[in-house]
């Protein structure tokens, strides 16, 4: 399954190792992999952030992430792509999102992975709510430009 929504912390590198083995990637067939990790920072817009909650739209989220992967596969010369995204409560330094692309050559790997992240940021129904140090919460209004 190239789209995975998880509601608990995961170690990105061991998860990636597992998922790589689960994908239909013949060892020796691909020459390039590009991986992006989005990690929760403990500050944002000048404030200390102590926690975050990620809301999503179950069903629509998966559907759109799968569509983004299909589009990446049709636009770029890639073998496989993977998106793992957290939902629910998240602590600083935890991984929010992991995207990965495997291809024959490096250009497609870089281009396709950037495409995955930009499309995900703009289209996938996720919403971040931050909890500040004083315990108050606020919804993140918009993403940083890519």
């Amino acid at each position, binding site marked *: 399954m190239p789209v995975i929504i998880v509601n608990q912390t995961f170690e990105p590198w061991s998860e990636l190792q597992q998922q790589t083995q689960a994908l239909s990637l013949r060892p020796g067939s691909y020459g390039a992999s590009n991986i992006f990790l989005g990690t929760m920072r403990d500050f944002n817009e000048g404030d200390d952030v102590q926690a975050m909650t990620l809301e999503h739209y179950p069903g*629509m989220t998966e559907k759109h992430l799968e569509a983004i992967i299909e589009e990446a596969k049709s636009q770029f010369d890639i073998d496989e792509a993977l998106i793992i*995204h957290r939902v629910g409560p998240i602590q600083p330094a935890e991984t929010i999102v992991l995207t990965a692309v495997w291809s024959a050559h490096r250009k497609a790997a870089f281009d396709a992975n950037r495409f995955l992240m930009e499309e995900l940021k703009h289209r*996938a129904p996720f*919403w971040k709510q931050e909890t500040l140090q004083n315990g108050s919460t606020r919804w993140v209004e*918009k993403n940083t430009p890519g």
Partner: protein
Amino acid sequence: MSIQVRYFASLGDQLGRQEDQVQAEGPITVAEVWQQATDGLPMPPNILMAVNQEYAETDQTINDGDEVAFFPPVTGG
């Protein structure tokens, strides 16, 4: 006909609920679903909407059993 309406994130907080059920006699647009569900509340700027989990515009026509959702700009990743 019966339409399931869902609200997400800050919009759900503002409305104080995550869903509504709208009843309609004939053809109805997304904008009319919003009007009916919120008792004529002006739609906040930048609001996004989806019909059956696909992005939609305010003038899209809704069918019986459709799911309509309203939510603020997405901020994942």
